[in-house]
């Protein structure tokens, strides 16, 4: 099981346990876990509505790509710890990380 923590917009935290090898990205897992995420573009790193901020850990995550940086740069609220959930594969690199949901709500 891969465990990581999600903090919602109200600051409530929940630890998610996801089976290994599930082949989903974080945006898809958040949607499936009933988090309110727009994900307008469906995972193409184009809309930035699945913006998350890494609060803790995250050192092993796949590095941010140029396409992801381009779109993060358009976000007024982005920080140096910002990522797009749709670009993060849910696998062992995510273990122990805490993400805060920052993207716009429905």
């Amino acid at each position, binding site marked *: 099981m891969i465990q990581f923590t999600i903090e919602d917009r109200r600051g409530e935290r929940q630890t998610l346990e996801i089976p290994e090898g599930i082949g989903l990205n974080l945006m898809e897992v958040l949607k499936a876990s009933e988090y309110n995420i727009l994900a307008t573009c469906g995972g193409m790193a184009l*809309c930035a509505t699945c913006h998350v901020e890494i609060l803790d850990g995250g050192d092993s995550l796949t590095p941010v790509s140029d396409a992801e940086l381009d779109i993060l740069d*358009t976000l*007024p609220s982005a920080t140096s710890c910002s990522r797009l959930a749709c670009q993060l594969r849910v696998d062992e690199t995510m273990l122990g990380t805490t993400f805060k949901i920052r993207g716009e709500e429905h």
Partner: protein
Amino acid sequence: MITTDICIIGAGPVGLFSVFEAGLLKMRCHLIDALPQIGGQLSEIYPQKPIYDIPGYPTIKAQELVDNLMLQIAPFNPSFTLGERVETIDKQEDGSMIVKTSDATEVHCQVVVIAGGLGCFEPRKPEIAGLEHFEGKGVAYMVKNPEKFRNKEIVIAGGGDSALDWTAYLADIAKTTTLIHRSDTFRGAPDSAEKVFALAEQGKINLILQSNVVSLNGNGHLKEVVVTGKDKNSYTVPSDYFIPLFGLSPKLGPIAEWGLNINKSAIEVNTLDYSTNVERIYAIGDINTYPGKLKLILTGFHEAAMMCQSAFKFVYPNQHLSFKYTTVNGVNAF
């Protein structure tokens, strides 16, 4: 007033294909979209992305699909109102409807079809204290009429192409032009970024990097913006107008106020014909929801065809609808 049979709200792929299906049944269409161009998400968000699940096309770029749809519906001569958001739908005594936009365009129609995708694309608003308070009093989210900014003190925030381009453009018009960007590099078009750096070197604009606008001050009208730099120190920059340019984001907008059953930002429909709870109003494509809904262009095309078969009775109440294949009947332009 524009008069038509079907008023389609949303000029994305599903709205466009509705014109074809309506045209086969001799129903005329007028389309309205909040964006200044047709194509919806496909043109606005991912024009160059290949799509692989359009039947008959192993791969097609999003913009190509939009262009092809325009060719396909050309025989039915649709009309368009672009760059205007639909605000209200008023039912008339005879059952017909009048659709009104933000710019007071009025469309009289027998049927309204909402093919609104994710809603209206609206400017993304940064989290800045006092921002909404100064909307229309110094805060603008787009440059509609550059002359408004002549000899004024302008502050632009953002790092994308529109922030770069408007900074360069307003440098010649405004009294002062300041661009404030969170990072020290720009990821917009390299040419635009170079131009802005050159203007800063020439002293024609103020370029403030690695900084954020954190709050706005003024008395009735905006007077200054408060900027925080990398060193966390805050200072003010005089500003008649503040223009945050952070792209567009979809919002349901006025659709939520039309008396339709809404579930999680989507309109509930009857899968028999994709009608809503309000007679003569249909919802198709990504904007609708029903058990088993798949948000695919493919699904939206199917919904468009089914919707037209049902809408026919409102446009031609005294006629019997007989289904005909295009292979038999061809496409009869009007």
